[in-house]
C-alpha cells in the first residue's frame, strides 16, 4: 500500500472555542492511482494533506507512506513524498527554474549531476526548456506552477500531494498539467492525492474519490463506482419559464445544479422523490424531464448539501 491514512483527527483551540478540523479521516491509495480529495472551503482538505506531509501533527491517528509513519519516522516517510501546496510559492523567485530544481534536489539528497539531468528532463516535459535560465519571478503564474510541480518531482517521489494545482491557471496550462500528471501516474506508477474545487479536473484525473465535509469523509470509493451509483438517478428538468426564485434555494439544497434560468439537473434517490420535485414546481409548465448520467459536480453537491442540512438540523 502506498498511502494508508488511519483515523486522522485534528482540533484547533482558539481562545475559548474548539474547532474540529479533521474528524477520524481514513483512506488508502495504491501506486499508479489518483485520489480526488474533494470538499468545500474549510472542510479539512488542506489540514489532512498537511498532516500527511508531516507539517501538522495529528491529535489522533497516523498516516503511512510505503509503511513508514509520518508521525514517528517523519523524515524517512518524507523521502517518498513530493508536494505542491496551495497558497505557497513553493519556489525561490530570485533563482531560475533549473537552479531551483538543483537546490531542492540537494535538500532531498540528489547529487548535482542527477539533479541537472532530471531537472532538464522535467523542464522539457513541462515545455519550459526555453525558460530554464529566466528567474522564476519573470515567469507567468502557469509556468511557476509547472516549475513547482517539477520541484516536487525532482527526487522521484512515490507519492505526490497536489493541493489545488490548477487553480487560477489558463486553460492551456491547466490542460498540460493534467496531461503530465496522468502520464506520470501511468508511466511511473506514482500515486497522487489531488485536492481541487474544479470538478472537471477531478473527474478527468481521479481513479478514486473521497469527499470531505466538516472534517469527516462522507463518501469514498472508485470514481466509476461512485458515478454508477448515481447513474439513472440524475434528471435534467427544463421548464417553460424561469425557475421561481423562492424555489431555487430549496432545489440547491437537494443537489440541483442550474444550467440556465429555466433548466437544472437534480439527483433523486427514488421516483417518488422525482414526483415530489415536479410537484414543487407546480404551476410552472415542465417542457422536458430526462434521465442523465451523473457527473462528479452533481455527486459532490448531493453529498455536501446533504451533510450541510444534517449538520444544521
Amino acid at each position, binding site marked *: 500500500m502506498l498511502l494508508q491514512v488511519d483515523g486522522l483527527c*485534528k482540533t*484547533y483551540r482558539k481562545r475559548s472555542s474548539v474547532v474540529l*478540523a479533521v474528524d477520524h479521516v481514513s483512506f488508502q491509495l495504491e501506486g499508479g492511482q489518483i485520489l480526488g480529495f474533494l470538499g468545500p472551503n474549510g472542510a479539512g482538505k488542506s*489540514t489532512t494533506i*498537511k498532516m500527511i*506531509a*508531516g*507539517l*501538522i*501533527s495529528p491529535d489522533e491517528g497516523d498516516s503511512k507512506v510505503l509503511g513508514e509513519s509520518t508521525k514517528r519516522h*517523519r*523524515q*524517512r516517510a*518524507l*523521502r517518498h*513524498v513530493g*508536494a505542491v*501546496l496551495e*497558497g*505557497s*510559492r*513553493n*519556489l*525561490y*523567485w*530570485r*533563482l531560475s527554474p533549473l*537552479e531551483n530544481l*538543483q*537546490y*531542492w*534536489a*540537494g*535538500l*532531498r*539528497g*540528489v*547529487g*548535482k549531476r542527477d539533479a541537472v539531468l532530471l531537472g532538464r528532463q522535467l523542464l522539457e516535459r513541462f515545455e519550459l526548456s526555453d525558460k530554464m535560465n529566466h*528567474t522564476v519571478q519573470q515567469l507567468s503564474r502557469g509556468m511557476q506552477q509547472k516549475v513547482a510541480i517539477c*520541484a516536487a518531482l525532482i527526487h522521484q517521489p512515490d507519492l505526490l500531494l497536489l493541493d489545488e494545482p490548477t487553480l487560477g491557471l489558463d486553460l492551456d496550462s491547466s490542460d498540460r498539467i493534467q496531461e503530465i500528471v496522468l502520464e506520470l501516474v501511468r508511466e511511473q506508477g506514482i500515486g497522487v492525492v489531488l485536492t481541487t474545487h474544479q470538478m472537471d479536473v477531478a473527474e478527468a484525473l481521479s481513479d478514486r474519490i473521497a469527499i470531505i465535509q466538516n472534517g469527516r469523509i462522507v463518501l469514498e470509493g472508485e470514481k466509476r463506482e461512485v458515478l454508477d451509483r448515481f447513474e439513472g438517478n440524475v434528471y435534467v428538468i427544463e421548464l417553460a419559464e424561469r425557475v421561481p426564485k423562492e424555489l431555487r434555494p430549496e432545489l440547491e439544497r437537494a443537489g440541483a445544479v442550474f444550467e440556465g434560468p429555466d433548466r437544472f439537473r437534480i439527483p433523486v434517490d427514488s421516483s417518488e422523490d422525482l414526483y415530489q420535485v415536479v410537484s414543487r414546481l407546480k404551476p410552472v409548465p415542465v417542457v422536458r424531464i430526462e434521465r442523465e448520467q451523473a457527473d462528479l459536480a452533481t455527486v459532490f453537491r448531493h453529498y455536501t448539501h446533504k451533510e450541510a442540512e444534517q449538520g444544521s438540523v
Partner: protein
Amino acid sequence: MWFGLLAEFRREWLLFRRYPTELISQIVIVVIAFYGLFLGASYVAGSHVVGNRLDSVIVGYLLWTLAMGAVGSMGWDIMNEAQNGTLEQVMISSLGLSRILLLRSIVMFLYNILFTFVVLFLIMWMTHRHLSVSIVELIPFGLAMASAIGIGYCVASMTILFKRSNQFLGLLQFVLLFLVMTPFASLPGWGQAIAVFVPIAPMNALLKQMMIEQFGLIGPHYWLLWSVVNAVLWVGLGMVVFATASKRARRKGILGHY
C-alpha cells in the same frame, strides 16, 4: 547532508553573483559604521588612548558582526521563508528544518569569514593599523560562531512560533555587543565561572589571550576547553529549544503561516 551543504553553498553563491550590490552595500555599511565609531572614540578619548586599544576593538567589532550574522540569520531565514511561501517545502524535505538551518549557518559563516577579511582589510587601510591574523586564530572565531548558532536556534524557535522577530533581533544587537565587549573573564571571584556559561564570553577571553597576551591557543586559563564546553552547551540547548518549538508549531498547525 553533504548534498544539502553543496546546495546551500551554490544557492548563496548564485544570489551573490546575481545581486552583488547587496553584499557590497553591506560591506560599505559595516566599514563606515566602524570608522564612525573609531573617529567618535578618538575624539572623546584622544587618539593616543584609542590607538593603544585599537587591535582589541577591531577584533571585538569583527566578532560582533560575525556573531550578529550567525544569531540573526536563522530568524531572518524563517521569517523570509514563511513570507515567501517556501518554509513548508523546506520542512517537507527529508533533511528537516533544524539541519537545513545548521547547514545554512555553516555556509553563512564561511562566506562571512571572506566578507570579514574584506572588511578587516578596509579597516586596516583606513586606520593605518596592521593586524597579523593566523589561521589558528580562526578557531576561537569558529567556536564563537557555534555559540552564536545556539542563540540563533533560540531566536529561530521564537520566529517559528510567532513569525515576527524584527524588534527582538534589533534589540539582540546590543545584547551581543554587551557579550562581546564585556570582559567577563577578568571579573573577580565568580565572574570567571559565569564566563564559562555566558555565550561567546570564553571565546572572547581566548581571543584576548591569543592576540593581546600572546599566550597562544593553549594558555594558562583553559579558555580553549571552556570555549568548547560553551559552544557545545549553547548549540545543544539551541537545538533542544528549536525541536520543542517546531513540535509545538506543528501541533498548532502554524508552520507555514505568516
